[in-house]
């Protein structure tokens, strides 16, 4: 992220901001509330490595959906932050049912 020699200064994105961003993206793709999703950032040979832990929305093919959402999260985070994302690991901790708490 450099503005080149004609623009003095540099844009820096903090690790916190990256984490929040990745968390929102992961929650959106997994279909789980963002507060139940945890994301840790790491480095994988110079690229960003995402470690996502959280539940996902109930579906027939959980593993297949998790795999596709890992790819989708990786692409989307790369798109939003402008960083090269090397890997996205998803660790599922449970499922979220729709209408889990029905308001009567």
């Amino acid at each position: 992220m450099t503005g080149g020699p004609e623009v003095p200064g540099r844009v820096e994105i903090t690790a916190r901001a990256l984490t929040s961003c990745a968390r929102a993206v992961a929650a959106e793709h997994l279909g789980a509330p963002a507060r139940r999703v945890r994301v840790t950032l790491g480095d994988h040979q110079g690229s960003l490595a995402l470690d996502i832990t959280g539940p996902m929305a109930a579906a027939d093919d959980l593993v297949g959906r998790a795999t596709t959402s890992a790819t989708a999260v990786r692409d989307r985070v790369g798109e939003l932050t402008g960083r090269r994302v090397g890997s996205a690991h998803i660790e599922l901790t449970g499922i979220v049912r729709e209408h889990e708490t029905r308001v009567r």
Partner: protein
Amino acid sequence: MSSSPNGASGVERRIRRRSVHRSRSTAVSVALVVLALVAAWIGTESVLRAVGAAPLLADPQTAVDTALRPDAAFVTIAEVIAGVLVVLGIVLVVLALKPGRQHRSPVPHERGAVIIDTRIIAATAANAAGTAAGVPDGNATATSRGTSTEVRVVPVSGIAVDEGIVRDAVKDRLGQLDERFGRRVKVRIAEQGTLS
């Protein structure tokens, strides 16, 4: 000095040389003082012997006699002394032969002698590399020795750093100080990046 076009340049060249190289006068002084002390001791012992007074440390005649008919204890002492002298001699020879360069470099300037510390060159190189690579200040470090500079860049995770661009930027910036500094630049990009 005779080739200098004007009178001041000879002095300036000497100032540059004396600033870049370490002085040997300390080693010379210490060696001479030790030599003078040993000579004075030998002279004192000889005079004391001639007068017939008691020797300070050892009578020269007995010392020579012991050296010619050595016993076990004397051989050990002689070996220890010889070892110490060999080490001292090597130190002096190294001090005499090595150029004794300090961490400074002369910069050509039309007036006066300009000497800059290599840390300034290294800091300039690190700054140029950091700006070119787009990494925070702490992620680019450099060491400089003589006219060669080595730059190490730790990239920010997810942002590729082009080694060629960094090298060109460093060469360019150091070339503004003096063309010699920009010639040998080595850039190393760390495999593992850091988050922001």
